[in-house]
């Protein structure tokens, strides 16, 4: 009780410097936690949203672009696979895969990408162990013989556009929306809304692939072409490995117009490796902020030592030992750091909600700000420990206070 009374009074008397120091610690603490958690969760989210599709066949070009375009519905489409190549793949290499879903892109509605596909896509899992599910309505097609101008929309599309089942719309040409642009004449009807997936699929308007291929205004000579084929390789380990290597040889080395991504997970991992420097810079900046903040605890307490020498002398005259005044200062320093850590959680929450909102709105990837991560224990406790350690320096000064000399008021 006595220690806390002394610490509380000191913090109250130096409220401004305490507040500024705690804020700077909070900033460092919040930044450190947020950088770590955003990096961890975004990597996990990006790796998860491969939707169980291990491989992709697409037109010749960058594998990263193919993955971003096909799975994350970002970036430009690298081109088309002609109908003959697509049919060859489906028929000749069936032994290597258990599911192959074609997609076609090229249209949008107010910036939301319209993706043509087959009903098979919805039989896959958007994230490990989580299949697509409808919140309301039905899927657009159930057989290969018939297709209608119907659409199934992602949760974000429904919320942002305020669409419900039976909403009618006309697609616009291109992957990006341009003001003043005339829409296609084809009118589509929303027949189903998907449950939120926390993946880029939430941002997509799904229509039958024939609808996109035969859309009014699209060149009819490309009507059978697809943008990419999403592939789930065989679950048999030998067939899988053989398939990966064979298809790699057949398409990447044996053709000049197709690209085979044999591991979407590797491409995502390589993408994050390439962005790793930015994450490292952020982490070092956050660490630097935290260290500077710890230094500010030292400075703020050390600067009060001269004015507090008499206080320590009085406490000693009342019977407090040297160890008591030493401990009080160390604890006071740790308390300021602890206050900073509490503020750090507010800073962390602010950054996480902002990052979550940006990633969800721009990419469709969902973060979980309240999900526990070891860094949320390590960083705050580490900073409190650091606060206690830097408190040792002023505490030594308090420890050495000469009682008799400092009991006399200094003018």
């Amino acid at each position, binding site marked *: 009780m006595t220690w806390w009374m002394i610490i509380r009074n000191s913090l109250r008397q130096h409220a401004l410097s305490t507040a500024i120091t705690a804020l700077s610690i909070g900033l460092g603490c919040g930044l450190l936690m947020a950088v770590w958690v955003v990096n961890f969760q975004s990597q996990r989210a990006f790796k998860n949203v491969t939707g169980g599709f291990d491989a992709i066949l697409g037109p010749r070009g960058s594998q990263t672009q193919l993955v971003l375009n096909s799975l994350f519905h970002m970036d430009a489409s690298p081109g088309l696979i002609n109908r003959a190549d697509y049919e060859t793949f489906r028929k000749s290499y069936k032994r290597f895969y258990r599911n192959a879903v074609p997609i076609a892109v090229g249209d949008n509605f107010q910036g939301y990408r319209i993706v043509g596909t087959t009903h098979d896509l919805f039989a896959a899992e958007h994230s490990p162990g989580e299949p697509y599910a409808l919140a309301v309505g039905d899927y657009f097609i159930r057989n290969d013989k018939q297709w209608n101008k119907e659409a199934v929309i992602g949760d974000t599309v429904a919320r942002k556009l305020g669409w419900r089942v039976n909403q009618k719309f006309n697609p616009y040409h291109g992957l990006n929306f341009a003001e003043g642009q005339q829409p296609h004449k084809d009118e589509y009807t929303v027949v189903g809304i998907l449950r939120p997936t926390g993946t880029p699929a939430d941002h997509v308007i799904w229509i039958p692939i024939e609808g996109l291929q035969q859309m009014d205004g699209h060149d009819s000579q490309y009507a059978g072409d697809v943008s990419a084929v999403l592939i789930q390789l065989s679950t048999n380990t030998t067939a899988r490995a053989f398939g990966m290597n064979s298809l790699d040889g057949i398409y990447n080395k044996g053709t000049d117009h197709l690209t085979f991504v044999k591991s979407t997970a590797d491409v995502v991992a390589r993408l994050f490796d390439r962005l790793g420097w930015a994450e490292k810079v952020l982490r070092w900046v956050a660490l630097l902020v935290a260290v500077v903040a710890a230094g500010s605890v030292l400075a703020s307490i050390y600067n009060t030592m001269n004015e507090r020498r008499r206080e320590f002398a009085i406490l000693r*005259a009342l019977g407090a030992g040297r160890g008591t005044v030493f401990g009080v200062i160390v604890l006071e320093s740790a308390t300021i750091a602890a206050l900073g850590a509490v503020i750090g959680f507010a800073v962390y929450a602010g950054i996480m909600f902002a990052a979550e909102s940006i990633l969800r709105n721009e990419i469709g990837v969902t973060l979980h700000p309240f999900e526990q991560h070891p860094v949320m224990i390590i960083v705050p406790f580490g900073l409190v420990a650091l606060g206690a350690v830097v408190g040792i320096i002023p505490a030594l000064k308090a420890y050495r206070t000469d009682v008799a000399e400092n*009991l006399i008021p200094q003018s």
Partner: protein
Amino acid sequence: MPLLEISDLRKSFRTPEGETQTVLDVPTFSLETGQQIALRGASGTGKTTLLNCIAGILSPTSGTVRLDGHDLATASEPQRDALRARCIGYIFQTFNLLQGYTCMENVLLGMSFGRGPDTDAARGLLDRVGLSHRLHHRPGQLSVGQQQRVAVARALANQPLLVLADEPTGNLDPHNAREALQLIREVCEETNAALLIVSHDPIVLDQFDDCQDLAELNHAAQEVAA
């Protein structure tokens, strides 16, 4: 056995010039339980040094200071701290109240290192010195006389065996000085605490039957005077 027994107490300091200067040389002095003694002493006669040696704030260069059977001269610093907290109440000329703390907190702090904080006891002490209506005021919000009363309450917080008072009326006007002295003497009598007061204020010294001259007691002061 006396409560306080001093023999051959010497305290020397090293001057900036590197010489050793003895400021205290007290061959013998004693104080019984409940006894009240005033020591008359002008500036530079070693008043504060003597009280600091008795309180265990300063360690004697040689000799013995025996308080309640414990020799402060040979005790370790933590032992002296504990003995001071438990057995001694110290009243200073400048009160030495902690400015950021309320009257109540100042008294509670006085208890903290001795018998432990006791809110009811602290309230009772402040009531005894007439400050029951100022419990949550800070020293800066009190008159000088009231601040000295808080200092008295704090000094008595651990029910000390010995109260040391260093020029307790030095900052008070004659009226407040008489009142403060009367209060100190009364509360010491009530708790049977011995009182050793050092002062050069005639208002204080005239009140005591047992008044000794520090210059006679301290041979080092005699040498300086000579």
